[in-house]
């Protein structure tokens, strides 16, 4: 009676690891990441593309994973919050500068929206010339598309400046 069991196998590179999932065609990417691949760091806040909590990177670009079907990104490289830190080759992890900055600047409270901010800001900072000092316009742009109900954004903006400064230092 319904076509809900129309399924496809989707192949993705998630956080650098090839993954496969057999998913109903109607399953959104957020649910596929969370329920089929067990990556629950991506959170759904509104399910209509406004809050940005579910943002992940698809081939390096921020995408609202609540508005994309998993089958639409077959073959793509997906980065979630779990993939932001680097392996330090000693069994630990090196946090991305923006993750470090969020902790240092108290840029999160409940933490629910945080993964969406982190991947968006990380992508934005990596796409710019790290040697240049970040401008307030750039900061506003990087934080401007996501909702946070806890922090009032001041410390998130501070964290962006902090992360940009770290990356600038590293670029020297």
């Amino acid at each position, binding site marked *: 009676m319904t076509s809900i069991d129309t399924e496809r196998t989707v192949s993705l590179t998630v956080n650098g690891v090839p993954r496969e999932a057999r998913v109903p065609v109607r399953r959104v990417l957020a649910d596929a990441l969370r329920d089929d691949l067990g990556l629950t760091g991506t959170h759904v*806040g509104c399910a209509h593309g406004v809050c940005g909590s579910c943002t992940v990177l698809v081939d390096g670009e921020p995408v609202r994973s609540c508005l994309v079907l998993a089958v639409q990104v077959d073959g793509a490289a997906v980065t979630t919050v779990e993939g932001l830190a680097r392996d330090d080759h000693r069994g630990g992890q090196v946090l991305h500068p923006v993750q470090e900055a969020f902790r240092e600047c108290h840029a999160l409270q409940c933490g629910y929206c945080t993964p969406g901010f982190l991947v968006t800001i990380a992508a934005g900072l990596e796409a710019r010339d790290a040697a240049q000092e970040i401008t307030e316009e750039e900061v506003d742009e990087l934080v401007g598309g996501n909702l946070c109900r806890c922090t009032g954004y001041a410390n998130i903006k501070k964290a962006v400046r902090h992360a940009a400064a770290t990356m600038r230092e590293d670029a020297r």
Partner: protein
Amino acid sequence: MTTKLFGEPVRRREDARLITGRGRYLDDIGAGALAAAFVRSPHAHARITDVDVEGALDVEGLVAIYTYEDLTGPMAEPLPVLIPHPQLHAPRTGHPLADGVVNHVGEPVVMVVATDRYVAEDAAERIVVSYEELPVVVGIDTARAAESCVHPDVPDNVAARHHQETGDVEPALAASPHTLTFTQTIERSACTPLEGKGVHARWDPDDGSLRVYSSTQASTSVRAAIAAKLELSLDRVEVIAPDVGGGFGVKIVHPWPEELLVPMAAMRLGREVKWAEDRREHFVSSAHERGQRQQVTVGFDDDGRLTALDVHVWHDNGAYTPYGIIVPIITATQLVGPYVIPVYRVVVESLYTNTVIVTPYRGAGRPQGCFAMERTMDRIADSLGLDRAEVRRRNLITPDQFPYDHHLTFQDGRPVVYDSGDYPGLLEKLTALVGWESVEERRAEATGRGKLLGAGMALYVEGTGPGPYEGGHVQVLGSGKVLVSTGLTSQGQGHETVFAQIVASELGVPMEDVEVHTGDTRRFGYAVGTFASRAAVMSGNAVALAARGVREKALRIAAEVLEADPSDLEIDEGLVQVKGTPGASIPLRTVAVLSNPLRYAFDEAAKQATQFATHDDTKPPVAPGDAPGLEHRDYYSPLRSTFASGAHAAVVEIDPQTWEIDVVQYAVVHDCGNVVNPMIVEGQVHGGVAQGVGGALYERMAYDADGQLQNASFMDFLVPYASEVPDVVIDHQQTPSPLNPLGIKGAGEAGVIPGSAALASAIEDAVGRRVAAMPISPSELYDLVRDDTAERTAASARRTGATA
């Protein structure tokens, strides 16, 4: 020397997991659980004539469908009235699933359980519920007119008439040199945490026990409610609040229908069941707040000093009153703010409407009270031609008047007696911080740029840390690890960090050794909850007292080993040592081992406590009145609330082409007594201000006359983005509370309280038209300034006169 931790901006311990995607929120739990979805009423008021589930039955993956007919015993009875009050004369609550009548859009009618949420939604949309529509009551005017009623046995729609007075107000008003009467309104808003509510339940049929995870602010009380409703012994139910993605008040209400229905289904099906609220569900089936109309009559003398205040509030409580009249009481009692009010009378009528229930949202009635009082101050200043800061200053309670008794009864049933404060100090800091003296120069400069500039301010006093109690348990393990638990929950306040700071400071151990757990009834069964800016005050003091108990016991045991007097010992960096005698010491972890006399050695450390390793055979191994283990449990129960305070000022610039309102400056002076972690307190202030600005300029619940919420999405309900939130400058004042051992006051809600009052004042100052309704949008402001009948402020007339 142990690093000083209390009062330091220690970085949060929660963050390591939350910034790496390793948090554990409700929907992250129970990957294989069945999913629940709900058929909710599309009508604001209707009789259910039929529920036809036939069409859903062949949906592959459907597991169960429940209607009211499937509820038995206490589940078939109305949900509890959580906070009864004698003046709540007509309390009404809904049922877990509607019993024949629905009273607001979004009320749950049918629960569907299926293999996943997609399938559950498929089945839900195939269930046909037939309704006979009934007359709808929306808005305070319609409710007061009472041409139709929400509940047939409450014909006037009045749930409660809350009344307090401190003297005979009418003669006091009659004797006043001046009086003013005005009305104003404030619209509905809502908490809208980024994570909605959610429940996961697992029934263990062999053990006969139920484990429930809920995104709640009150896990111990959810546990008690589930046990009562599902007829389980309390010891068979455990409730855990996992990482919670924001609360702001909405998650203090309980038991939500889903908190009972999901466990019920898990028990009946013998399977894990989960429900995670979606955003539309959150808008139409959780809770809202703020909606009030206020009529204020104030008497004052030639100097602007209040002589009498008479306030009538009409409060929209939505369809039901599960949380009693807490919000009206808080408005009524916090309205008085930092001022001396010789005679005060307040009456709040709490009215039923066919809308979502109204329960506390951060501030919980205080923003409305502040709006009433602060706009009264502005009107007095305007009518006398006095500076608004000066009128406030003349009416403030002075530092020598504490404790100050307002002769009112607060939300906790205790007297409104302010414990400490320095309100003139706040005002002085605020006017300096915002540059109040230079507003006219700035106005002239802005006028030159074609902008209308205005400034406004608002002061508040906030009763925080109400009882009845919270508890804390501190235990030192043989490994040196210090386990701390308290029953109240966390929704982002950083409790794991601040409670660890407190315990590490009290006990003299490195903070890394301290591990804090909250909101888990397996660890701590007695608690009230996280609301009313109470967690730091209540659990902060409780864990401090528990840590002091552990310290005392540790010193006693160590004194025997070191053959010293306990008063000569200190604990530093986890080492118990004789003061001034290097080398005479014993690690706290060894004391923990020795505190538990053993027969069996399970590791090297344990050998020290076994029966042949200890030599005193003159006493029993555990003395009468003593207990094994280095642990202590204690409770903090205050006589009454402690009162924090603050003052905000806003400067706005308005573009007379677009009427866009730009908040160009926002200044906060904040006093929450002794501060455990200033970084976290500032974060709370920032977040509160953002919600205050949202409530003043953007957020409203747009119900139409049929009770349909027209903006039930983040596309249409405008939670501020970063672009809408002004930069905030903060100055601090610390007036310790004399009521609790740590001298702290609550900080969670403060930031939101004065937002609407300060911004209304600033906008009014800019445009010279009376702003009596908040929030205000650019189009509403445009309408206001074009309305020839709109009241002009005397200040604007004076300014025009001055410039003419």
